[in-house]
């Protein structure tokens, strides 16, 4: 008998510990429910973000969210889920997308937008945007078009233009007696001259998403005649086995073999950026948002910001793309309305202004004034604004046009290409295979 009592007690203790735990969570749930019942007009909006911690846009995001709180704090309760690191964000969004439970507002990058459309959560925001002409005027038609689906629906909105030429070390260029190249032959020639003077020409990296390397690859393809340019502006191209891609891969092989740092193969963005900012390589392809780092003594060598120049790619090429931006996944009209208010805070003229000031993002619309003071404080930014007027070839990057599996394949097969295990043709074929697996 005694034993049975003891056994019962043991089981009871375990069960009750479970129940107590559940009870706790139920308690907080019902608590918040009753609270929202009290103020029926308060809408709860869920928003997931990776722009936290060390992310370059963290300060900008905070400024926007503060503004949102100020404007709508008494009618909309924003529940923010912080997902530090880009990969963790993508992973969790995919789990939520599979369950049809994406938060009300998400960033659509890394294929999240497509999943939100596929699982039926993404909302066509065009009608709601049309209702607010003032806001729409802040956005450029190009940026809206870039995110428009084939069926004329708008599932995401972005307010920045991603521009990238390359940064270069003016001292090294002067030492080698060269100017930013006008043609690709000249570009290769410049590399040779830099190399002859003992400067490593390029900071490249093939780890992560091959960011800096693939901007350069995209530039080679995107400035290679009409066919190449069209290829680099096509989302999910039919095949990578085109003459332009193979040419560019062959040239990239030479660059990776001869004209970059020893650690470029497999390097992370951080390695390549550091090589450039510590004066160990002469050129680095990246967007303007990197410019604050040049003045940061914790990242760049002393006086580095005075030595950095910015240039367009040969043939007046400039990477010009619009990322996916924010997607609305809210289900009820009230929440959709609240979500649009959040999007507006991020993307209207004031939101673009914040992006420009904090992150040095290029605003997509014309309603943001670039003051003389801002231009003086950000000479590289100002010069890029001036240069871009002469763009002959505008092209997107692979992160926007290719499936995530293709981007991943680049990092896997660049080493094989450089170590001579595969040819450029074979690599293009591997990219096709990767694209096929995503279709």
């Amino acid at each position, binding site marked *: 008998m*005694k*034993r049975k009592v*003891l*056994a019962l007690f*043991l089981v009871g203790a*375990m069960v009750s510990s*479970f129940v107590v*735990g*559940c009870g*706790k*969570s*139920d308690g907080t*749930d019902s608590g918040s429910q009753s609270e929202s019942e009290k103020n029926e007009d308060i809408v709860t909006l869920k928003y997931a973000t*990776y722009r*936290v*911690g*060390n*992310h*370059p846009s963290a300060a900008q995001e905070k400024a926007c969210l503060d503004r949102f709180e100020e404007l709508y704090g008494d009618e909309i309760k924003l*529940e923010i*889920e912080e*997902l*530090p*690191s*880009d*990969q*963790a964000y993508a*992973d*969790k969004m995919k*789990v*939520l997308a*599979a*369950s049809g*439970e994406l938060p009300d507002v998400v960033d659509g990058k890394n294929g999240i937008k497509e999943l939100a459309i596929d699982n039926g959560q993404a909302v066509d925001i065009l009608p709601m945007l049309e209702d607010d002409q003032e806001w729409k005027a802040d956005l450029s038609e190009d940026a809206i078009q870039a995110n428009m689906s084939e069926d004329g629906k708008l599932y995401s909105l972005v307010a920045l233009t991603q521009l990238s030429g390359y940064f270069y070390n003016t001292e090294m260029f002067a030492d080698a007696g060269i100017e930013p190249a006008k043609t690709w032959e000249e570009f290769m020639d410049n590399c040779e001259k830099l190399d002859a003077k003992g400067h490593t020409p390029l900071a490249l990296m093939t780890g*992560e*998403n091959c*960011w800096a390397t693939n901007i350069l690859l995209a530039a080679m393809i995107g400035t290679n005649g009409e066919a190449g340019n069209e290829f680099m502006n096509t989302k999910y191209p039919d095949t990578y086995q085109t003459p332009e891609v193979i040419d560019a891969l062959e040239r990239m092989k030479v660059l990776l073999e001869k004209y970059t740092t020893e650690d470029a193969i497999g390097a*992370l*963005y*951080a*390695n390549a*950026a*550091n*090589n450039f*900012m*510590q004066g*160990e390589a002469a050129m680095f392809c990246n967007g303007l*948002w*990197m410019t604050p780092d040049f003045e940061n003594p*914790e*990242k*760049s*060598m002393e006086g580095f910001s005075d030595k950095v120049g910015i240039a367009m790619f040969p043939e007046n090429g400039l990477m010009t793309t619009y990322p996916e931006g924010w997607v609305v996944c809210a289900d009820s009209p009230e929440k959709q309305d609240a979500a649009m208010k959040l999007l507006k805070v991020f993307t209207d003229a004031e939101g673009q202004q914040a992006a420009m000031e904090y992150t040095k993002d290029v605003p997509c619309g014309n309603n943001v004034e670039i003051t003389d003071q801002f231009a003086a404080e950000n000479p590289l930014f100002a010069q890029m604004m001036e240069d871009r007027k002469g763009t002959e070839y505008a092209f997107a990057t692979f992160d926007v046009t290719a499936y995530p599996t293709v981007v991943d394949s680049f990092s896997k097969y660049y080493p094989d290409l450089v170590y001579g295990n595969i040819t450029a043709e074979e690599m293009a074929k591997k990219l096709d295979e990767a694209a096929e697996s995503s279709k």
Partner: protein
Amino acid sequence: MKRIRNYIVKVPTFIFVGVIIVMSVVPILWVLVSSFKLNPEILSSTFDFPTGLHIQNYVNAFRVSPIAKYYMNSFFVSITATVLNLVVMGMAGYVIARASFKLKRFFRAMFSLALLVPGAALLIPLYTTIKAVGLYDTRLGLILVYAGFGIPTTLFIVSGYFMAIPRELEESAYIDGSGFLNTFIKIIVPLGKPAFATAGVLQFLTCWNEFQFAMTLTTGHESRTLPVALYYFKSAFASDYGAMFAATVMISLPSIIIYILMQKQIVTGLTGGAVKG
């Protein structure tokens, strides 16, 4: 002659342990030294000592990430999950080691499956399960999941240990008229202390370091654990490795202390001759 023979054994032993220790020490030192370095120093120097003692990495770790908040969560989740796992699997491990019943092989095989289910395949189903029982974004949800992750490890260690110790002690207890449960609590559990300490250490480490599920099964600061904090320094375009290593040092310290404490439990049995027939 005996001395020479002694050296033949001793020298390779010394080399073996030496190599192993050096291989472990170098990366550990590397983490520690880097936690006082700036990003460029980490990314361009080999093994130099930092130019100055950059304590600010530790300050940044607290400033940028919610690490302080997560400490409490991590302790609560890891300790509770470890205790739960040890209680539940200690019971199972004992009967599987000692009792004879038909489905024994089945149970062993079933619990072994837990070693084999790939993490990526668990994500969505576990999210669904946890959500369905209302434990999403709660520490209890994480506790149950982590206790579950440790099922096979604890089972193997505990049942293996019980198989190895002589039966005489329990049997004499039974002969003295002690009941099953009483014997289990008063004799078996103290006897199995080294096994419980070992399994406990491994289980604690699993809980303390787990990232993917901590991220997937929670949304807010109230239930998240330390490994999530580490990722606040890992942004694709702006990683702060100095702060990340500083956070790593701070996150690892409690585990190291717990390991040292538990190790005593494991070793005391060793010369104490706990079990004599």
